[in-house]
């Protein structure tokens, strides 16, 4: 018999006993589907991490308050300006911008939620994001019409606003917003620019926000409870560096400057300076660990699937002992019998693999829909899962096939 004849025979046998075939394939289906689903979750997570990182812009240094050390140094909180000492304050950002060379932008953010009106349109709960002029560069935001505010407007607490793409549409429709007035809370702001579409980054819709100088937020808007507690303290100062090679040097300068301003030694600093590189590295090692774990789970489930095939093939060999005897009596050699069962195992795992691929793709999609986690079906994972299914089938089909080939014709024929 040639391979095509063996495959045809195997196909006939599989389709003749659909329930048994399905049971045999179940392990492989689950194995392959879970490989594809898990890899798609892992790839989706990686993609959204990458997006977050690029969403923050490149060449970034983060200066953050070290709350554990800062807490000890914080004085009594006052409504007007927070404690006397400890933690990062807005002036720290100004100092970095003024005193350190090679810094292209320093951004501080403070937000508030307000009702925004323009003409007859009223929108509740719009995020007012106060920041500094470097914001578009640091956040990779592009101006579509008009311009962003400048340092002078920031320093003088000018009541100007730049609108996110969707917000501009909702407030002004097809009309030109530039030069118009919007009312945020009780404050009238003049629209000076509109951003291009940016989409969701880290769960924040950048197109739905209103952007204004941070000094305006400090002065005019009701800060959140947390912001009220913070006073003019800031949680993060984003510093964009001009030249990546200067990164180490600039980090050191920032550390010295802030330590001097806060009158602490570097060892006891109430702030920390991290680079995007550090964050990428932690993220990467986390996802690598995650991926390794997935590889183990996938491998185990495929082996379990293979053992399932072996089990049911063994049962099948016993059930079909008489058929084997009949085939031997009309001239099937041991190798004919072996090949018959091997091709059957192979075909079962290939068909099971194929069904597993479909279930996996559908499962990834459904999982993405219901969990709000991102899933990306990776084509190499399909190939990988499919090939492993075939290998598993051959490997675990071998033992039952050999068992069948070694049956004695007379005993097999006598089997009921």
């Amino acid at each position, binding site marked *: 018999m040639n391979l095509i004849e063996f495959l045809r025979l195997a196909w006939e046998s599989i389709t003749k006993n659909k329930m048994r075939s399905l049971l045999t394939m179940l392990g492989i289906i689950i194995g392959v589907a879970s490989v594809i689903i898990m890899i798609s979750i892992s790839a989706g997570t990686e993609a959204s991490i990458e997006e977050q990182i690029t969403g923050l812009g490149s060449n970034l240094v983060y200066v953050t308050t070290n709350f554990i050390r800062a807490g000890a140094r914080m004085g009594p909180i006052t409504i007007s300006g927070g404690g006397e000492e400890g933690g990062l304050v807005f002036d720290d950002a100004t100092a970095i911008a003024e005193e350190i060379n090679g810094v292209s932008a320093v951004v501080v953010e403070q937000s508030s939620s307000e009702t925004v009106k323009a003409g007859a349109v009223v929108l509740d709960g719009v995020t007012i994001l106060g920041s500094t002029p470097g914001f578009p560069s640091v956040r990779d935001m592009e101006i579509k019409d008009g311009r962003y505010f400048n340092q002078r407007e920031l320093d003088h607490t000018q009541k100007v606003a730049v609108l996110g793409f969707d917000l501009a549409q909702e407030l002004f429709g097809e009309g030109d917003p530039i030069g118009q007035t919007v009312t945020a809370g009780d404050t009238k702001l003049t629209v000076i620019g509109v951003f291009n579409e940016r989409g969701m980054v880290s769960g924040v819709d950048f197109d739905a926000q209103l952007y204004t100088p941070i000094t305006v937020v400090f002065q005019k808007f009701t800060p959140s409870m947390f912001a009220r507690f913070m006073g003019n303290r800031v949680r993060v100062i984003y510093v964009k560096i001009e030249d990546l090679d200067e990164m180490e040097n600039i980090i050191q300068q920032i550390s010295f400057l802030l330590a001097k301003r806060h009158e602490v030694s570097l060892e006891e600093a109430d702030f920390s300076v991290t680079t995007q590189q550090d964050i990428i590295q932690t993220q990467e090692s986390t996802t690598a660990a995650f991926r390794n774990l997935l590889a183990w789970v996938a491998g185990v489930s495929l082996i379990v699937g293979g053992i399932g095939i072996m089990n049911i093939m063994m049962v099948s060999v016993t059930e079909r002992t008489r058929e084997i005897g009949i085939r031997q009596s009309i*001239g*099937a050699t041991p190798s004919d019998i072996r090949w018959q069962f091997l091709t059957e195992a192979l075909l079962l795992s290939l068909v099971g693999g194929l069904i597993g691929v479909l279930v996996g793709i559908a499962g990834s999609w459904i999982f993405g829909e219901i969990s709000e986690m991102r899933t990306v079906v990776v084509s190499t994972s399909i190939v990988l899962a499919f090939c492993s299914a075939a290998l598993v089938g051959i490997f675990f089909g071998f033992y039952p096939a050999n068992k069948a080939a070694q049956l004695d014709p007379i005993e097999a024929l006598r089997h009921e």
Partner: protein
Amino acid sequence: MAVQVLIQTEDVKKIYGMGEVHVIALDGVSISIQKGEFVAVMGPSGSGKSTLMNILGCLDQPTEGRYILDGVDVSEMDRAQLAGIRNRMIGFVFQSYNLLPRTSALKNVMAPLLYNREQKRNTNMQQEIAAEVLKAVGLGDRMAHQPQELSGGQQQRVAIARALVNDPVLVLADEPTGNMDSQSGEEVMQLLHKLNQDGRTIVMVTHDHEIAAHTQRTIHLVDGRVEKVIHNGSGSNSSAFEKVSHESH
């Protein structure tokens, strides 16, 4: 016409089990059967008829002694070689038909062609040959039927077609009519006689003296030995008169 020996066994023994509890199923059987003969094997239950047939059919091998089939010693062959002999030289017909379940008559008859390594044919050819043989056994209109949709007599005729499809020199039948009514049994016997008339060598186990009497020779087994060999007449279609005149010689 030169007489050609097809089957020759020399002191064939078959012993089941070792040591204390063992059964001597065949205890030194030496027989010789010529090409074109129709031979019946008779004997009480447990006398070793099936054991002998299995050895003649190369499904089993003797514990001792030699079996020469068409001039070739098959007692020392390995499993794969024996499979080849079964495939091309022997057609075996069982009492219980032994058709592949849930498989059409046509596919059942095609099966031995699949395992034929000497003469490989494509699927169309295989189908053609199988269909032809099925027509020859009178089942041209039942080719797509599965075994469970056929009567016992029809199933046995499918089995005979399967036995014939590789054009074997020897047809072995172990109680081929044992499982069917006399009408179907008659049809199957007619078919076997026709095959013999066409020159096919047939060895058949039967309990029916009437049926045995219509063959050329009857080998009687008792306790694994050949008790006697009776010549029934000159041909498979020999009449009772011929049989009497033959014995009076």
